[in-house]
């Protein structure tokens, strides 16, 4: 199913169309990674991808920057970035794109930094990889970026990763990601391993930096609150498919897919009462190995009907509201 034209303008920075990724581990069984995922990001936009383990959100991030492990292969679809088909590029050309135009920020800042190199040096290496600046100039650039990331560059430029706290390490990773002014930053759960106050600081920093530099941000998270606060548009993923998409405020206020509404409700809000039972989605994450007939969410769905277990639900698009949902029982779309 081709995406309808008005929803995806030609000025999209990144356009992913019907991307399908399968994992083929050495012992044969195919595992579904992504199934016909489409998304578009405009320049400077902040888009969120909401999903839990097994939803394929990380796979998509890796697929866009072509960092998938060897066992994964892209079996369908396309990825267009600034008019260039990323899937057709050579590895050399892709290296130039990464870091310079599309940057990746991961979840674990501790393992993302080389333990035997100073952090300033690690930022500087990114600068050197993308420009021909002299050693002195690149050092200046690196220092400046560390300062922008909220670190005291005089003290921290020559520090080693083990001398920094978790939040500081993530700031170094952010400096590395943004030092070459990429047009798109993909952040895969950047704060899930940090405590709440540090998390707030890091998200503030990210928000400020991407707004100042007009960098587009693809924020991937399993925390609906985070996505709600920061993003303009949201995609919700389940079992490798996009099950709902639309402007964040709309998706959070009026979720159309049962999974989205279940997810939003299971996150407790302060001030809504004390000790209480939380509404939760029964069951566990989907098993991606077995070939599933019908909707992948059906076993856990409160609104399921007969047809849900027989066929894959189609994608329903509301062009005006810029929303899509993939469900037979969507909870009341406007044109019904």
């Amino acid at each position: 199913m081709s995406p309808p034209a008005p929803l995806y303008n030609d000025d999209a920075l990144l356009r992913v169309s019907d991307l399908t990724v399968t994992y083929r581990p050495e012992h044969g069984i195919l595992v579904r990674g992504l199934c016909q995922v489409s998304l578009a990001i405009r320049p400077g936009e902040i888009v969120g991808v909401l999903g839990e383990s097994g939803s394929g959100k990380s796979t998509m991030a890796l697929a866009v920057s072509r960092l998938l492990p060897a066992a994964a292969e892209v079996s369908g679809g396309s990825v267009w970035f600034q008019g260039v088909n990323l899937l057709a590029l050579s590895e050399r050309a892709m290296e130039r794109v990464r870091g310079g135009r599309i940057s990746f920020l991961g979840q674990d800042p501790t393992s993302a930094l080389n333990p035997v190199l100073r952090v300033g040096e690690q930022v500087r290496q990114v600068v050197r990889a993308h420009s021909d600046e002299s050693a002195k100039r690149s050092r200046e650039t690196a220092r400046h970026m560390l300062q922008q990331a909220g670190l005291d560059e005089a003290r921290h430029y020559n520090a080693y990763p083990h001398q920094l706290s978790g939040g500081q390490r993530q700031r170094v990773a952010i400096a590395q990601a943004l030092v070459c002014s990429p047009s798109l930053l993909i952040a895969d759960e950047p704060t899930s391993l940090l405590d709440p106050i540090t998390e707030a600081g890091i998200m503030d920093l990210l928000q400020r930096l991407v707004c100042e530099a007009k960098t587009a941000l693809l924020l991937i998270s399993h925390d609906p609150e985070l996505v709600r606060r920061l993003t303009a548009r949201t995609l919700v993923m389940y079992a490798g498919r996009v099950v709902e998409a639309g402007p964040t405020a709309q998706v959070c206020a009026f979720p159309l897919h049962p999974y989205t509404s279940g997810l939003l409700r299971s996150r407790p809000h302060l001030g809504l009462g004390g000790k209480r039972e939380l509404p939760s989605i029964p069951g566990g994450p989907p098993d991606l190995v077995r070939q599933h007939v019908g909707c992948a969410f059906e076993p856990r769905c409160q609104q399921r009907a007969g047809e849900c277990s027989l066929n894959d639900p189609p994608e329903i698009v509301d062009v005006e509201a810029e929303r899509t949902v993939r469900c037979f029982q969507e909870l009341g779309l406007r044109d019904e």
Partner: protein
Amino acid sequence: MWRRSAPCDASRNWDYGMSESLLEVRELRKTYVKPRMFGTGGAEVVALRGVNVSIARGHTLAVVGESGSGKSTLARCVVQLEPATWGQVWFAGVELTRLPWRQLRSFRSRIQLVLQGASAAINPAFRSWEVVAEPLQILKRGTGAEQKSAALECMRQVGLPLDLAERLPHQLSGGQLQRLVIARALVLQPELLVLDEPFTGLDVSIQAQIANLLLALQRERSLTYLLIGHGLPMVSALADEIAVMQGGRIVERGAAGSVLATPRQGYTQCLVSVAFGGAAARPSAEGSR
């Protein structure tokens, strides 16, 4: 918006009658000494500086704070996994810190520790039911068959389907592993559960399930919980009282509702405002976080 007041030792204002509280911790201190290569002595790390808490039977006390504030140390000292440098831990009217090791054993089955995630807490070579039955095996209670049926019963109570009993831990999902660890803690029929960050690393929908499970278990078995956590939202659904730790001390404590509605201490205010979606209002120096 929030009034800033001087840091007060809120713990002293709390007054539980001795007969009501199941667990009482008095002036607990813990100092770690990092040994030097040469000579004696070394760098001292003070993890706990005089902590006072008490929990009534059937209640839940949530302790929140940043990493390094001493919460995990508190959990370990309460369960007597580590000896405290100073202070007392009273459980059901008996002073645990003074008991010799052999007598402590009979108390171990009444206080259980649930650790975060499974990678640290489960022997990967055991099958699931064996993991749950392990405490019974260690304490030599019952025959092999009785142990297995007790383990399976606990697994049922935490909502694990029986066909998972023969699986190995690496074949279970994160939420299932957390349930398994809880089942193992329940098999000895404890009265007090100390849970160290039970929600970290789990998906949001699974967190809600685990929280509901804990509530149900508390109702059915009149359990008492000491819950250690990072953030406020999750504990708000579970806690009767909340204590906030910072730098090894309890800086604020009170009934959950009032702490969340009117936090008095700076750090608590920060936590609450962050949980409500405000910016990190803490005036920390740039880069110190």
